[in-house]
């Protein structure tokens, strides 16, 4: 439980961090809250030669709202998300999901950027980001680019980020009126990763579903965007039968692996159950309940 040797860098600005990352390349790892990276290093599953700690870069912790878009600094901690009035006002789902992550110690240090960048399908933010239609601002040697959450996740622990790129900001469109969102997470105990989780965002207009997005946690190599399930809802009045159909479609998008949380078949069923619960709750909220 002791990591191997590594060099430690603590840049004071994004420019400095980007330059360091450009120079050290593949051998370096960015350190955010450390709550995914350090456990892997202690088990020597990861043995980076250098760590670039983003902890001293104040600008990466800022949360603001501009033209109906939330701009969240990658280094904002889960605790900061939970405490943020802006998030509560424009997109409470993020704060609700953050409160279901790990325990207070982890939430005090773990960051939204690290949670997203790590590429772990067990992490909760990726599905939330998919459901909210978020996009990520990446900063590399050649400047900035913006990648949609839907294009970000490639495979297990593999994202669209290049080795010399940093995630600096997360952009989330504020929820429109008439829209409800919910995240349902089934876990073995408090602080655990999800057995299965489902995020649903539903917009209602004149009694019918105008917009829908559904994404799932920990039931595939990446967070799962259950597009077919969401598409089924659009244009229809949502009732229990339709919810059941959508859940079935969500289940067919799952490809979990068996572990001590349960076998494949159970996890798939639970993804269905969480989907049902998330749609029901999102719908209730969309209708102002």
């Amino acid at each position: 439980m002791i990591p191997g040797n590594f060099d430690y860098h603590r840049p004071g600005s994004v420019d400095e961090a980007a330059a360091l990352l450009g120079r050290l390349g593949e051998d370096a790892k960015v350190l955010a809250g450390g709550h995914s990276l350090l456990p892997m290093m202690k088990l020597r599953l990861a043995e980076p030669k250098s760590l670039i700690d983003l902890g001293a870069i104040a600008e990466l912790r800022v949360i603001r709202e501009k033209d109906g878009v939330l701009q969240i600094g990658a280094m904002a901690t889960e605790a900061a998300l939970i405490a943020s009035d802006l998030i509560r006002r424009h997109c409470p789902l993020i704060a609700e999901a953050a409160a279901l992550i790990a325990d207070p110690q982890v939430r005090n240090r773990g960051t939204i950027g690290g949670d997203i960048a790590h590429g772990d399908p067990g992490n909760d933010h990726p599905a939330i980001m998919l459901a909210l239609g978020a996009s990520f601002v990446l900063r590399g040697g050649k400047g900035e680019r913006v990648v949609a959450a839907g294009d970000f996740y490639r495979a297990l622990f593999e994202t669209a980020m290049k080795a010399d790129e940093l995630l600096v900001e997360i952009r989330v469109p504020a929820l429109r009126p008439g829209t409800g969102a919910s995240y349902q997470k089934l876990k073995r105990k408090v602080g655990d990763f999800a057995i299965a989780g489902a995020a649903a965002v539903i917009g209602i207009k004149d009694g019918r579903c105008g917009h829908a997005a559904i994404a799932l946690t920990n039931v595939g190599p990446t967070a799962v965007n259950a597009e077919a399930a969401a598409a089924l809802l659009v244009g229809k009045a949502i009732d229990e039968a339709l919810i059941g159909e959508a859940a079935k479609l969500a289940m067919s998008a799952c490809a979990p692996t068996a572990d001590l949380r349960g076998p494949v078949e159970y996890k798939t069923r639970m993804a269905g159950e969480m989907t049902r619960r998330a749609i029901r709750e999102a719908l209730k909220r969309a209708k102002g309940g």
Partner: protein
Amino acid sequence: MTDVIVAPSKEREAGLAGIGSHRKRKEDPRLIQGKGQFLDDLKLPGTVFGDFVRSPHAHAKIKAIRADKAKAVPGIIAVLTAEDLKPLNLHWMPTLAGDRQAVLAHEKVHFQNQEVAFVVGEDRYAVADAIQLVEVDYEALPVVIDPKKAMAPNAPTLRDDLTGKDNAGQGPRRHPNHIFNWSVGDKAATDKAFAGAAVTVKEDIAYQRVFPCPLETCGCVASMDPVRGELTLYGTFQAPHVVRTVVSLIAGLPEHKIHVIAQDIGGGFGGKVGAYPGYICSAVASIVIGRPVKWVESRMDNLSTTAFARDYHMTGELAADKDGKIRALRVYVLADHGAFNAHAQPTKWPAGLFSIVTGSYDIGAAHVAVDGVFTNKAPGGVAYRCSFRVTEASYLIERMVDVLALKLGMDPADLRRKNLIQPEQFPYKSALGWEYDSGVYPAALEKALKAVDYKGLRQEQAEKRKRGELMGIGLAFFTEIVGAGPTRNCDILGIGMFDSCEIRVHPTGSIIARLGTKSTGQGHETTYAQIIASELGIPSDDIMIEEGNTDTAPYGLGTYGSRSTPVAGAACAQAARTIREKAKKIAAHMMEVSETDLEWDVDRFQIKGVPQKTVTMKQIAMAAYSNVPAGMQHGLEATNYYDPPNFTYPFGAYICVVDVDRFTGETKVRRFYALDDCGTRINPMIIEGQVHGGLTEAFAIAMGQEIVYDETGNVLGASLMDYFVPTSVETPVWETDFTVTPSPHHPIGAKGVGESPNVGGVSAFSNAVIDAFAHHGVTHMPMPHTPWRVSEVCHRLGIDK
């Protein structure tokens, strides 16, 4: 002698904070301020650190070990392998069960994470780097993980070192992977009862492999003084005296030149009874290097290699009359002991006290047979907060009674009522040979049923069932057998399982008492002081309790199996009584009266009928050092070695109510009521604390704990990410209650309580979960009742739609 107005007895008694007092724990001020002294707090000058290279394979030949690269890491002092220990004959060590266990794997590894080499260096960081650089060539061998396959004709032989030996310490073996067969009871009478029975039931009931998971992992600091030739071994030892004897026997050092010291220990639950390779390797390394060597397990090492508990695969059968009267019990057990037979049980009992399996019921005939087998899993078989295999036994009978109730269409409470041993049957001789000391079972059951409004709960359940909701009510009426034990029955390595207490009263009337047991959090410093306070009339605040130092404490067998109060607690009372005898003689001398004129009153002797003529214990203490009768030795102290005439038999009635989410398989414990009868209650607050802790562990076992292996022998989930340790969020609210039936043979009538909640709790949880499905005809569900397992049942029954 004083001649004053004396405060009323009641007031003086309260001032002692003795037996029955809820006083706060004496150890807590240091523990809750972080001022305890645990093993890793010990920092001797010049200490070096040791840690293990562990096997990635569950079964493999070791072809070669190369340590050159590891030795080249700056700060590395030594790398020990079995070849280095062999000349000292320390590459194997004897187990408590008559087998032997590899200290460092010799020629073969037998389970994943087995100790292969011991790396010693100046600091932990260098050691961790060097461990990665030790190169071991393995040749993988086929593994046996499922105990049911261990004795197959074509099963690979696991223990080549036992080839040709038809005895691995506990009787004849009939297969290379067989350890022992043990049976007890009247087979003919049992078979006959079954043959003629109106109703019989049979069920396979497994108790999964679990691990106690104490807060503090195992560790030691071995410090050899090369000049004096003395070895001091500090460590997390529940039985320090036994450790000293074992070290002396296997290391060949004279016992008086070994000092074993157990400081504060952060939980043991049985896992800190035995000896581990880390202790031996640290001692050898310290002898070789001449510096103190510290070894502390990581959490993963602890979970995956430190002695496990249970792994009992049982088949239970009950025979009964139509009206529910149970006539006979038959049990077969396949016991998975892992790679070495290293379980910690009294020598004569290869299945511990499992034969308490007839439980709280008057069953005329019974027979039990147990086969122990080797598998490629970590060795162990400790009592995880239960007296030697009692929780397995209690689980079996409490489950079987529910299975029978279902078959008969009887309420589980009525079936228990019908079969409980009656008060007038005590002392009760069980079909499997135990003599239960005391109990008033029916009253305890009725009190429990009333407290939870059992009838009302069953009504609510019936209504819920109509609506398709799942609610379960689980009962357990357990009988424990603790206080090992009578030396005619119980020994460890030939040493009788007595325990001891030495009390010394100082001239000012304060006391130090030393015992052969060792608290790992049970509050001995408080409980023992309360016993002595009541016996000697000295306030418990003025009594210091010391344990764990083999140089100063009298010899004892340690703390496990709820034996401290039944055995060492009795030694406490007996030693105190010896002191009081002497004190009486001194008092008579002081008052110039005959001993027969005196009577004891709380904290003093008074002249019969003259309450103002008294001398207090405090005054007597001073006199013991200044003014003793002619011919009497000075001083006021006594030592007692207590050999209990019998075990004690605590019992209890537990009721658990759960709601099951049929869509997710999640179980919510709505209510848990625990009535315990542990005889005389010394400190009710400590008892309650013990019950809370034990129930929480029982909850963990029933609902989530399991050490899981895959088919190739990889141990899965050996971290707290997966291994279920409930937090306050998951833990139910506990309602505790009691009745008091003193033990007739214990000096103060106390029976022991620490393990009762685990013994009774697991069955109550499990029965509740399974009862939620009783109306669907479900007779049994395997533990632990994790959401996915429960959900599988819902899915199979088609009730999750």
